[in-house]
């Protein structure tokens, strides 16, 4: 043991796992005694019979639905899968159990109809009272004297162990050289099962295998010949080195990761709009692989690339489908947001940790030590992440940053000069005699006494939004508020805030203050109210405010005028904001206001400064527009995250802090931890040498793609419901070395490719087949069909049409009709752009490539760690009859004619050399020539493109 992991064993986990069932109770009686009102409920006499008769069949010794049992005290008083307590002693209203048995929730009435139906009112009352009285449960009836304490003894949570490779009895291995530790572990396990490993594959098979596996392309005849004829000791290691150095490696293996990351380039769902700039992430993955970026950095960048200068990497977070049609029903919209967050949590936890944390969204995980609150702790890490575009600061064109800095410093100089001027001409000096600035609470406008029948309060500017006034008072010379409706004053306005009950016009003169009794205009920044007094009044003062209790300071009228009239025709302005000190925005008066009160040279200079500042700001904005944006997600200040009862956004429970799984420790973050730091800290924890899962998971993924099956055959589930490793020691040994080699994926590839295990022949052997048909002990290299992308790439390579243009915007296989909903129409003609490698195809959800999509090609709807390998008639039809393949068969015929001349035999020879890396035997030659001579070379080429020998890695 190297002490790599610090596992906190939490007693809460005791809820999760099955305990010993050595002791169980059998109900002796059913029904409940009718109780005298004051008599306390007795568990043994009153409660247990109800449980036994109605609950034990599903929550008892034989069965524990929702991991909950009522026959054992410690279980019954725990939380099962619910994430909260079914029985809260002393509080029946907080107890889920009572909610269930009382039938409050029609969906979840317990016991269910098919298990004996509901409890009687008396029985429910008994349970309610028992809980309210403290749920006393005598220990002698606890039922679990022998219950084991549970722990996280699941293998994948344990520290990685540095097992020494076992000593292998060479008698058992035959002609299988032990080249490295992998071979020792594999051979030893095979020996245990009485199976011999296979001899090494021939060189032609091996070079085809390594090219198809590592590049998804065929080796050229020249490469094959060079390797076959290389009799140096380093022939294999040189070949492996060449293969790993080629950039085709990243183009091939990025596809695997993009499956895991459920990466697609359209929104999915009903509108399915394309994401034209999502490809930055795809290129990032290819480049990271080609540069052999340490996997731990790859992890950190994808979760927090914005924190480490690799913006495009966060395309991982938002690579999934995203429902942009928001429901107007707030409940449904909240659920949509929950689904988005679940996508971030699930993808992160399955991709990096091999844990199905998403299962704990509604209840504690049924198999793994993951609490429901853990799910929400992780959700809190991503609570500020949103779908959308962001600037790629790492992709800024040359010179832009410099120009930007220069412009910004010019701007700063100009702004400084303006600030100096503001200091030189302070507001107070030029504005003596003015009323104080308006304030949100209360303002008084006094003026010379005037006669008025009408008074109009007109607003032309607010600090923000539609103006609000909570009360408008007008005082007569007798100091009476003549505006009150109760005194007969009527009111009208320019328009009132619609669809609400608080902000009504009648509130403006109802004598009540505060936001709940206020008027709001229906126009942004303006509006008016007009009072009509029952008779001519003599007034000298208006008192008004936006919210006299001080609760709100928005919607404040900062530009306003008060006018009076006796006939509603001729108006006199008696007061207004022009009589007040300017309202300061961000602590100062506006530029226009400032210039407005200056004269002479000062006014000219200030005008010039303001103009220059405006221009500089514009050019900064233009520079910023030239910085590319990618579909790599947006980050905002995260709201508080709460655990949701049964995953329901309408049932928020306690607040949770951003964190990792309880069982694996804590990040020690604050509830209000800054957004980026949440992701960064999580990423660093995932990518740490001490994490027992991360390195194991990626080592297993790499193994999975090499052999078609992982050491753990469920690559995204290392939990209890996943498969157990076939070679646990090998997995740990490789993981340990992988970490030692600085998480280098190329090191790992080399180790695997160099092993005799990988280099074995793929020929089946009857005796081995009978013992291990699935080849899980790897007695041969398991043969497999190529994936959709590799088939297409190989076809193009073979016909000489493959366009090797790498990176950048992808090619489209569709013409897009970009309405609100995007419609995709398959192209009918293909050209060089469509002949690029399929990794560069813009991956539109729900719209597969018409020919190759049916080869189990995922469309990015859900993460696919493990593609199916089905064989269907539609695949056969597409490969035989599609326009694409027929056209390519023609190209191949042209190529053969061009390279091998007119002679059919030479053409066939060349075709075999290109497609199968070998020469045909006499029978094959004869057969092929007959077809080609009778029906033309293209007929032969069409068959060739359909051949198993072409489509399988062997």
């Amino acid at each position: 043991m190297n002490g790599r992991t610090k596992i906190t064993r939490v007693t809460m986990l005791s809820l999760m796992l099955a305990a010993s069932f050595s002791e169980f109770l059998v109900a002796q009686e059913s029904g409940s005694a009718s109780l005298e009102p004051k008599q306390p409920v007795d568990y043994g006499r009153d409660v247990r019979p109800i449980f036994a008769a109605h609950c034990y069949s599903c929550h008892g010794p034989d069965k524990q639905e929702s991991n909950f049992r009522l026959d054992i005290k410690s279980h019954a008083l725990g939380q099962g899968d619910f994430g909260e307590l079914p029985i809260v002693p002393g509080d029946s209203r907080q107890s889920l159990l009572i909610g269930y048995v009382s039938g409050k929730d029609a969906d979840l009435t317990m016991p269910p109809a098919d298990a004996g139906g509901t409890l009687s009112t008396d029985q429910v009352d008994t349970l309610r009272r028992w809980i309210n009285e403290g749920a006393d449960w005598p220990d002698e009836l606890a039922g679990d004297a022998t219950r084991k304490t549970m722990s996280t003894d699941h293998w994948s949570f344990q520290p990685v162990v540095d097992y020494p490779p076992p000593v292998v009895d060479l008698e058992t291995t035959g002609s299988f050289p032990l080249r490295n530790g992998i071979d020792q572990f594999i051979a030893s396990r095979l020996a245990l099962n009485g199976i011999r490993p296979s001899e090494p594959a021939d060189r032609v098979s091996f070079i085809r295998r390594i090219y198809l596996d590592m590049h998804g392309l065929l080796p050229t005849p020249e490469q094959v010949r060079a390797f076959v004829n290389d009799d140096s000791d380093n022939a294999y290691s040189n070949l492996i080195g060449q293969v790993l150095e080629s950039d085709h490696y990243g183009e091939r293996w990025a596809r695997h990761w993009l499956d895991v990351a459920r990466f697609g380039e359209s929104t999915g769902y009903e509108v399915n709009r394309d994401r034209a700039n999502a490809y930055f992430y795809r290129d990032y993955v290819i480049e990271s692989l080609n540069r052999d970026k340490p996997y731990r950095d790859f992890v950190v960048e994808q979760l927090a690339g914005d924190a480490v200068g690799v913006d495009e990497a966060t395309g991982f977070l938002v690579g999934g489908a995203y429902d942009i049609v928001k429901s107007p029903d707030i409940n449904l919209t909240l659920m949509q947001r929950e689904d988005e967050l679940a996508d971030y949590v699930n993808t992160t936890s399955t991709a990096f940790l091999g844990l199905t944390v998403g299962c704990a969204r509604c209840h504690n995980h049924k198999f793994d030590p993951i609490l429901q609150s853990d799910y929400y702790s992780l959700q809190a890490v991503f609570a500020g992440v949103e779908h959308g575009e962001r600037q790629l600061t790492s992709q800024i064109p040359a010179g832009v940053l410099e120009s930007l800095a220069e412009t910004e410093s010019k701007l700063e100089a100009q702004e400084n000069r303006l600030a100096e001027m503001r200091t030189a001409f302070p507001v107070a000096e030029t504005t003596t005699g003015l009323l104080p600035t308006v304030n949100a609470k209360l303002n008084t406008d006094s003026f010379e006494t005037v006669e008025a029948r009408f008074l109009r309060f007109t607003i032309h500017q607010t600090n923000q939004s539609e103006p609000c006034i909570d009360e408008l008072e007008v005082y007569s010379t007798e100091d009476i508020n003549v505006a009150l409706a109760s005194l007969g004053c009527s009111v009208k306005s320019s328009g009132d805030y619609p669809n609400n009950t608080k902000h009504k016009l009648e509130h403006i003169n109802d004598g009540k203050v505060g936001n709940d009794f206020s008027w709001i205009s229906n126009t942004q920044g303006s509006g008016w109210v007009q009072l009509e007094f029952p008779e001519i009044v003599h007034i000298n003062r208006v008192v008004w405010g936006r919210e006299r209790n001080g609760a709100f300071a928005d919607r404040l009228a900062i530009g306003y005028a008060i006018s009076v009239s006796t006939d509603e025709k001729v108006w006199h302005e008696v007061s207004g904001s022009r009589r007040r000190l300017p309202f300061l925005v961000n602590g100062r008066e506006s530029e226009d206001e400032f210039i407005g009160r200056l004269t002479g040279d000062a006014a000219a200079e200030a005008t010039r400064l303001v103009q220059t500042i405006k221009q500089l700001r514009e050019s900064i904005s233009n520079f910023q527009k030239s910085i590319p944006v990618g579909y790599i997600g947006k980050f905002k200040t995260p709201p508080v995250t709460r655990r949701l009862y049964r995953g329901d956004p309408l049932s928020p429970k306690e607040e949770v802090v951003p964190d990792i799984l309880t069982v694996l420790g804590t990040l020690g973050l604050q509830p209000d931890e800054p957004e980026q730091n949440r992701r960064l800290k999580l990423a660093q924890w995932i990518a740490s040498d001490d994490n027992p899962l991360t390195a194991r998971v990626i080592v297993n993924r790499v193994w999975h793609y090499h052999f078609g099956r992982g050491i753990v055959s469920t690559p995204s589930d290392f939990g209890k419901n996943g498969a157990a490793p076939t070679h646990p020691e090998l997995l740990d040994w490789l993981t340990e070395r992988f970490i030692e080699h600085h998480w280098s994926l190329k090191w790992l590839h080399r180790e695997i490719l160099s092993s005799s295990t990988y280099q074995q022949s793929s020929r089946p052997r009857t005796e081995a087949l009978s013992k291990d048909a699935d080849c899980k002990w790897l007695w041969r290299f398991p043969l497999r069909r190529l994936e959709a992308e590799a088939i297409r790439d190989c076809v193009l390579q073979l016909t000489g049409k493959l366009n090797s243009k790498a990176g950048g915007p992808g090619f489209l296989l569709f013409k897009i009709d970009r309405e609100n909903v995007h419609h995709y129409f398959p192209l009918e003609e293909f050209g060089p752009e469509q002949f690029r490698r399929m990794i560069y195809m813009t991956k539109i959800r729900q719209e597969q490539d018409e020919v190759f999509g049916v080869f189990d090609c995922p469309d990015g709807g859900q993460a696919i760690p493990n593609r199916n390998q089905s064989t269907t008639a539609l695949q056969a039809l597409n490969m035989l009859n599609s326009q694409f393949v027929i056209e390519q068969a023609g190209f191949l015929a042209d190529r053969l004619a061009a390279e091998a001349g007119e002679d059919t035999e030479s053409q066939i020879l060349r075709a075999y050399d290109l497609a199968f890396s070998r020469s045909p035997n006499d029978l094959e030659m004869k057969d092929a020539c007959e077809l080609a001579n009778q029906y033309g070379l293209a007929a032969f080429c069409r068959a060739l493109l359909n051949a198993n020998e072409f489509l399988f890695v062997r």
Partner: protein
Amino acid sequence: MHSEIHSRYLLNRRSFLSSTMTGLSSIALAQLLASQNLLLGAVPDKTPIRPNIDPQRPNLARQPHFAPAAKNVIVIFCAGACSQIDTFDYKPELIRMHGKPMPGEQVVTFQGGQGNLQKSPWEFKPRGESGKMVSTLVDRLGEMADDMCFIHSLTGKTNTHGPGENFMSTGFTLDGFPSMGAWVTYALGSENNNLPAYVAIPDPRGTPQSSVNNWGPGFLPAVFQGTDFNAARPIRNLARPQGIPGNEDIATREFLKRMNERHLAHFPGDTELSARIASYELAARMQLSVPEISDLSTEPEHILKMYGADDPENKLKSGFARNCILARRLIEQGVRFVQLFNGAYQTGGEGTSNWDGHKFLKKQYDVHGPILDQPAAALLKDLKQCGLLEETLVVWCTEFGRMPTFQQGASGRDHNPAGFTAWLAGAGVKRGYTYGATDEFGYKAVENVATVYDFHATILRLLGLDHERLSFYHNGIERRLTDVHGNVINDLLTRA
């Protein structure tokens, strides 16, 4: 228990052979015990059942979990959210309150503000012995009311089309999950080895909003996805390519077969290779059988007439009618699952080519009603008269319902997932029966409220499948069509 999970190898003949015996015998034993009531009172076994698939014949018929009422299914899916108010959910109170605001609090709408209650522009009439009130918009379907089993109390989880279609077709509002048809063919295979086991028949106007998601395989193997074609548009790449003569085609394929067999000789016993050879043979059989089944020229004139396939005026109707005939022909040949779409989401705006009648309900439904009505009613009648209805379940559904009110400033109805109608007909379901109800206006399900999960559970039950057990292991989860929800609606079944 889970050490043998390897979904990638689901279609691996080797593991198929090694697991067949135990798998089948355990099901057989359960059936035996059940038939003798030995399981009565015991806690029902809910362990997952994952079918064993023979990779060379992945669509071979497989045993259900218990005796089925129906052997195969036709789903008629009205895309765009067909209004229950104007078809099958009769509400006298709505007529009485016509033009008045709906009592109660303001409801949430999708597109526009809520206007006043609006009775259906179509009259309702009592039908058949059951006296079921059905509108004249679907007059001929109404004549079949005695054969239908209505559910008026369905509820959905979304009020947008894409997620709504996903939900009805896959049990999840999210993208990427297997369709009901894929689940059924995964479980049961097919009775016909020359045709796809699962056929999706898009409307003559195009595909629905959620497009291929409605018949996609999700994470199930691709072999279980719906093959989409209709009477007018054959399977893609089915035909021999233009410019390649028949004899060349045959010679090429025979050459290919010899090539593949010689290659197989180097890998004796490898079934991945032989399965691929077999797939070319199925493709060849499909090339014969699919054009034959799509060729309606052998249908007698009175049948074409009954469906409306001869209507020279209404091309969309005759097109849909031909799709309906195709559906019957497929079922006749033992195809397991047929999904017949009525309505498409193509260019042209809402409600133009599907049931999304937000603004001009009367005008648009007067177009869509006749396209659906006669052909779908004829399909039901035809299945009945040839006896196929006894072993076929016909399902009529849509993604959600519509409001009893019109939208403000429009003469159409907004989305409404709070209560909508579907019906079943045929094998194993009650005839002329009505289950559940919406409130007095048809807005919200109030009686025997049912979920789409319940609906799916019931359909699987009719096919002899336990929705809680039919399972596929994916990413650590035993996935089910009904996720963790759903109860069979026993009230709908002739024998529960």
